[in-house]
């Protein structure tokens, strides 16, 4: 219980910080004006500079008060120009234009370049001076000047506190449950049809005397879905070796191929049949999406594998592979974290691991306490997410909900 309350509070704080961040990120509403003047607008006032927080030491935060003619007065401001220089009284040619913002905006994050030979180089720990002009139609105001200011390195990004909290909570939970599992406390996991099917599928392949095709998707070793797929591949290879069937693993990337070879070899060794492993069963095809599909489709139709397993990162080839597998009469098990491809796998394959199930599969297959522990930790974090959503909604209802059409404004497409 203690834990839950603690977790709840941490989540609350992190979500609040998110909400505040979201608020500050939104820009001011557009201002209205109506006149065309030809004389220069009044300059912006009260220019303040400070080191840009949470950066690599090459940024300055510039703030000013809107020109009296911005949206009011003569309404003649179109935009603001921000200039920087190393000396307060340098000639105009030595003032570098750092940026432009449209009317109504009163701050600018001047993120300079970190390389000294770059045109936009912003030196670290050096006195810098700034000028901001209000720009009208073909004219600009006198400058608002300020300085000096220096840019510094930061050693911790305070905007990332939420992630840190979550990482720590996750780590603590994982360790706790792993210890529980090691002590022999039985951790229940619900059955997953797709994973149980893997066992049956390997048995079926043995009966039919046909191979199993394992496709790691088109991700590189840099995709976490591919890495999750390796962890499953190891266990599938072990079972394949135990059942004395064969497997085919076509790969789209040489590094993926290399890791897959090690994984399959280890699986065979685990099953006590290291000499049954054939190096050519895990091979490289080509590094492009459609040629890879063409080759795998050819393999499927010619070898007629008893089972096709597609786990990892997939794009448009999901349906191309899965339908060819249907033609070949294979049992098909798929899984990916790509939401856009799940519909095709769901429609064309016999079993589909949806999103997180892909990551959970290795724990299911291995049934080792260490792995089941992380599974339990994942569930707890999901519970925390649920509680967070509930709590924040309650908060909004009780404190007078502000009407924002969040679902329609989010770029989640």
């Amino acid at each position: 219980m203690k834990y839950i309350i603690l977790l709840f509070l941490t989540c609350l704080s992190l979500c609040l910080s998110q909400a505040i961040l979201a608020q500050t990120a939104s820009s001011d509403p557009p201002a209205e004006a109506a006149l065309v003047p030809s004389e220069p607008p009044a300059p912006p006032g009260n220019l303040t500079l400070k080191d840009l927080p949470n950066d690599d030491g090459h940024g300055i935060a510039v703030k000013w008060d809107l020109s009296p003619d911005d949206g009011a007065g003569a309404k003649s401001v179109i935009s603001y120009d921000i200039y920087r220089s190393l000396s307060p009284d340098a000639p105009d040619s030595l003032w570098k234009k750092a940026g432009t913002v449209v009317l109504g905006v009163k701050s600018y994050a001047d993120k300079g370049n970190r390389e000294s030979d770059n045109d936009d180089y912003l030196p670290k720990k050096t006195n810098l001076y700034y000028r901001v002009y209000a720009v009208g139609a073909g004219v600009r105001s006198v400058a608002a000047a300020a300085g000096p200011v220096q840019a510094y390195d930061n050693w911790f990004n305070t905007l990332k506190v939420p992630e840190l909290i979550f990482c720590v909570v996750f780590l603590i939970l994982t360790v706790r449950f792993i210890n529980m599992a090691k002590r022999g406390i039985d951790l229940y996991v619900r059955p997953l049809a797709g994973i149980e099917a893997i066992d049956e599928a390997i048995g079926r392949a043995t009966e039919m005397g046909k191979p199993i095709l394992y496709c790691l998707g088109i991700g590189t070793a840099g995709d976490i879905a591919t890495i999750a797929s390796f962890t499953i591949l190891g266990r599938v290879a072990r079972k394949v070796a135990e059942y004395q069937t064969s497997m085919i693993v076509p790969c789209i990337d040489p590094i993926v191929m290399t890791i897959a070879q090690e994984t399959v070899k280890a699986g065979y060794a685990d099953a006590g049949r290291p000499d049954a492993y054939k190096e050519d069963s895990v091979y490289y095809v080509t590094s492009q999406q459609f040629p890879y599909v063409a080759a795998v489709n050819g393999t499927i139709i010619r070898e007629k594998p008893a089972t096709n397993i597609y786990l990892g990162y997939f794009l448009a080839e999901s349906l191309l592979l899965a339908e060819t597998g249907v033609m070949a009469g294979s049992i098909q098990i798929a899984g990916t974290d790509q939401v856009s491809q799940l519909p095709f796998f769901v429609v064309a394959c016999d079993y589909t691991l949806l999103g997180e199930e892909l990551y959970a599969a290795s724990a299911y297959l291995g049934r080792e306490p260490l792995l089941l522990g992380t599974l339990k930790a994942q569930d707890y974090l999901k519970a925390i997410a649920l509680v967070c959503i509930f709590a924040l909604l309650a908060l909004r209802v009780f404190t007078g909900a502000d009407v924002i059409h969040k679902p329609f404004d989010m770029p989640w497409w």
Partner: protein
Amino acid sequence: MGLIISAVVIGGGLLWILYLSIKGQDVDRRIVYLFVGATVALAIIFRLEFGEVATPIVKSVFDKIENLPAGSKIVLSYDFDPAMAPEVNPMANAFIRHILEKKHRLFFMSLWATGQSLLSVSLNDVLKPEFPDAKYGVDYCNLGYKAGNEGVLNVVITNFRKMFPSDANGNSLDSLPMFKDVESLKDMDLLISVGGGKPGVKEWVLFAGDPGKIATAGGSAAVSTPLLYPYWPRQLIGLLGGTKGAAEYEAELIKTHPRFKDKGMPALRMMGPQTMAHVVIIAFIVIGNVAYFRSRRKGKQS
């Protein structure tokens, strides 16, 4: 003629398959492939077009342009790139035809750097040959592209001349007669944005149409259309979504102004194979279900 042949071939085939599957025979996947390929091919060869009927969301844009008094001021913004062009360019061309046919004043502009060249293609391929009487500066003008995304809208809603000292060809705005009574976007009668990305229709609504209370319409690629639906009917008077929306507009245009009939309506033509293929796929789903329920009933009886 083509329609009859296609209808007989495809319809007859589908009926035959339905009959077979009711009798309990399974349909081979190759038959499905054959039907999909044949329908698309027939539709392309015979240039089949179907009577697209404008849905209210499209009809309202059409009616707006149709019913505005001649000489109304309309902005048409090209907010797309060549990748999106096949889908949305037909909309832009249909708008040009319709607007000039109704003798409105047309102001071209673009929030996308890539829109500029597509815009000049439209000017040269559609506007100049089909409306030789339209005078530059009187009936239409091209403001061209200005950098600044929605910031541009922020400015032109208060004043055009601040953002556009001159048009795309370097003429000062005051030298163009059509700008005589135009101060800002607020003097416009209708804003139309054609595009599918950002900035696009949504930005026109949020930064121009809404704050200035100006009627706004849009055309967008199919991917982003669902995102824009929420703005209709209040903030957007209408919306053309993807090839389908464009085809509906073209159909409406041909119906009201038959002289465009032979101008080649790319969206309508594209919808032919699409419609046919969808009919075939839906028919197969129905056949599959009929066969399934029949076999299940048989299973129960025995």
